[in-house]
């Protein structure tokens, strides 16, 4: 009977071995690599939002190249603090707010979240201020642009299109290269600009070199702008966001090296963009004695060498993109982080009824942020810079939690900080505390004189 004779095992017919053996594996590896590159770079790019751009422009306009040296320790601090969060996300698989909740209890979490809400609300407000001033350059009234932007963000993000939006915004981040190109058109002395990355407060006393150095004025306005720079570069929310993104991407310990690279690339990109914005404004505004920036039109002057009469438009597009990018990510991630920490349902895959607190928080942030900008006579630039100061105040608290958690052996196993790393991280935190105190002092006893008042505008 021929039935049984043809019942050979299928497997034996297949050819064994061969160069194809690993084909499936290689293909998948590449996909995984691409998927891991991301959270760090995205976080840094969101970070260069409206408040940031204003602060960097203002820094360059007021003090020229004399603020550049601060970028090196700042970039360093940014990397150290972000890396700890990324590492925690990868090892524990839990978000920062989850960990604070589990290890410090409900009440502590509640107050951290409350502060987060207040500070991030300030940031959202700054983003809508960015939208308003960008659209004003195109002659669109804020009473039209801001409500439109608010509705756009609210609808698009809740539609679950945030991934898709993220890509569009990331593409538009290329607008930042306008500053790089503009800096080249402005023809600064590059060697001198790079020289300013070294600590200029020291260099200005070194013979033969000091003639090239923009003097560093150690007055209050200068310290204030430095604090603002740090506040806008190292913001509390980005640590929560980064850790959540690492958890969501399921970066395990095996892919952690790639993520660290990603965080480093993000940090370097972020610092480079600041460098070029400062060089641009230093060459175009500071050099001609134009040290005040009170609206977007003046900030746009930095792009004149590249774009000439189109500088305003270019600046507006960049500012609009930055603002909308952050406005679409900040309220959502804040609502998410708060609900996660306090144990409420969170996520756009829930219906409104299933996660009411999440949706109400999200909506409130957008409505309050956009609403405040619609009040008459709101000083837009000032709001933007002040929100950065609030970031600076919250940051040390968040860093203390991060440090306490990252050194817990029961959570992190072998991945706790080394002694050197701890010294660096605690040093950064201490520096932040000092800067915060300086800021608080200034906010209680405002510096007098033209230079001082300019910084707060």
């Amino acid at each position, binding site marked *: *009977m*021929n*039935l049984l*004779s*043809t*019942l*050979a095992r*299928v*497997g034996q*017919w*297949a*050819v*064994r071995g*061969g160069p*194809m*053996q690993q*084909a*499936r*594996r290689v*293909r*998948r590896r590449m996909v*995984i690599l691409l*998927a891991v590159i991301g959270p760090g770079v995205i976080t840094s790019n969101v970070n260069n939002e409206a408040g940031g751009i204003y602060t960097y422009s203002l820094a360059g306009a007021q003090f020229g190249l004399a603020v550049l040296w601060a970028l090196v320790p700042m970039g360093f601090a940014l990397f150290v603090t972000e890396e700890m969060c990324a590492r925690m996300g990868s090892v*524990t*698989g*839990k978000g920062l707010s*989850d960990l604070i*909740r*589990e290890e410090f*209890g*409900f*009440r502590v979490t*509640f107050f951290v979240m409350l502060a987060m809400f207040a500070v991030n609300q300030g940031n959202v407000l700054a983003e809508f201020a960015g939208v308003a001033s960008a659209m004003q350059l195109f002659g669109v009234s804020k009473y039209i642009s801001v409500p439109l932007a608010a509705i756009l963000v609210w609808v698009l993000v809740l539609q679950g299109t945030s991934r898709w939006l993220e890509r569009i915004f990331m593409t538009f981040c290329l607008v930042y290269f306008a500053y790089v190109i503009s800096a080249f058109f402005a023809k600064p002395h590059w060697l001198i600009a790079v020289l300013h990355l070294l600590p200029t407060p020291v260099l200005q006393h070194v013979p033969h070199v000091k003639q090239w150095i923009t003097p560093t004025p150690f007055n209050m306005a200068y310290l204030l702008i430095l604090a603002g720079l740090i506040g806008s570069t190292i913001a509390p929310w980005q640590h929560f966001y980064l850790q959540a993104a690492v958890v969501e991407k*399921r970066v*395990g310990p*095996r892919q952690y090296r790639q993520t660290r690279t990603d965080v480093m690339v993000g940090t370097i990109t972020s610092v480079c963009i600041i460098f070029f914005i400062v060089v641009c404004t230093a060459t175009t505004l500071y050099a001609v004695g134009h040290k005040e920036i009170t609206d977007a039109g003046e900030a746009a002057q930095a792009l004149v060498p590249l774009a000439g009469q189109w500088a305003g438009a270019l600046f507006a597009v960049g500012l609009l993109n930055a603002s909308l990018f952050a406005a679409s990510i900040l309220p959502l991630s804040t609502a998410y982080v708060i609900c996660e920490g*306090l*144990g409420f349902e969170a996520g756009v895959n829930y219906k409104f009824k299933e996660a009411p607190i999440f949706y109400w928080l999200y909506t409130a942030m957008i409505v309050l942020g956009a609403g405040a900008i619609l009040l008459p006579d709101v000083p837009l630039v000032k709001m933007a810079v002040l929100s950065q100061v609030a970031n600076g105040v919250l940051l040390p608290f968040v860093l203390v939690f991060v440090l306490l958690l990252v050194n817990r052996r029961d959570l992190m196993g072998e991945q706790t900080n080394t002694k050197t790393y701890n010294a660096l991280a605690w040093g950064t935190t201490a520096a932040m505390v000092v800067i915060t105190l300086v800021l608080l002092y200034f906010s209680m006893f405002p510096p007098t004189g033209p230079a001082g008042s300019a910084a707060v505008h």
Partner: protein
Amino acid sequence: MLHATEVLGAETYDAHGNFVGRVKELFIVPADQPNRVARILLGRGKYRPLVAKHDQVAFVAPGTLKLNVDERVLEPFEPNEAWLAVRKDLLDQQIIDTEGRKVVRVNDLDLAEERTNSTMEMRVTRVDVGLPGAVRRLLEGLVSPGVIRRIQENLPPKTIQWEFVNLVEPDPLRRVKLRLSSQKLEKLHPADLADIMEALSPAERQAIISSVDEETAAEALAELDERLKAQIVEKLDPEKAADIIEEMAPDEAADLLADLPPETSQEVLAEMPRAEAQEVQELLRFEENTAGGLMNTEFVFVGEDAAVEEVLEWVRSLEVEPEHLDTIFLIDKQAMLSGTVGVGRLLLASGGQKMSELKSELLPMVSTEAEDVEVFEIFDKYNLRSLAVVDANRRPIGAITVDDVVSRLRQAA
């Protein structure tokens, strides 16, 4: 009814009314009773902490606890892994609500008081995961308990019955000591279990996979995304991993093994029975987005001259999953694919008919290198439920079933 956080921190007095200390922790001893607060840890500042047993408690109210014994009778505290700690293991931690099929965070616990002659026992009845618990945690110690209770009455309660609570303990030894069983998880639909696992941390996911039975583990893994799957299996010991992978369909197993580091997948394959390992290894050669990557090597084929009753008898003797049975492939004398017979036709045929008389007019097939898009088109065009994959000599070496097509299309979308 009491709440755990009202008892934690309570001032404790002994039978003579002397102050003993404050309640630092409540312990459930699951080996005795699953829901009774069996031990109460009393902190005494710089002195050694003491432990009161459930039958030594005379009375409990928010903020106060009275013992029915003298302080000297109480035993000094020795940490015990087999005790479930309310504050450390439950409050603020994530648990699985097996009824609501999701992961929730514990705000507080509801305790029922049970009064007997001279004792008062506390039993955990529900877990509070909603606003009332949150408000209590926030206001406790700042506002009087009465006020808190009044505020709570106006808030929507959200609680889970203690019987439906499943704890996740990453440490396998402690899991045994705490008598944590996974039966409730095994009863969940694999897709729900997978959703739950996604909401947990890696250590907790690991705990679930190694505590549920292999079949459940395989089904739940199949529902997870690729990276998560690989991460979980990589951390299992190869023997356990092999046991789970054996339960999977060969094509799923191959997809999974391809994502593991080469050494790990070799180790796992070495632990699997020969035949199954070979099957999977052959599938590993194919690229993911080709017919070879989609196909399954479990399929049924018979000689075209066989009679229907012969085939039925033979198929009954096979250990084959029913879902791989909906199409039977025919081969000729050269072992080349010569036709397909749907099970429906087989059912309607009379016993003496030859298989070749039943075969469909069309004979679609693909080579292993065919792109997945092509496969989808063929499925769509001919309304297939399964499609034969053939080698260069037109010999069938696998079959693609419609469920594989659907899940691949969904991934692509």
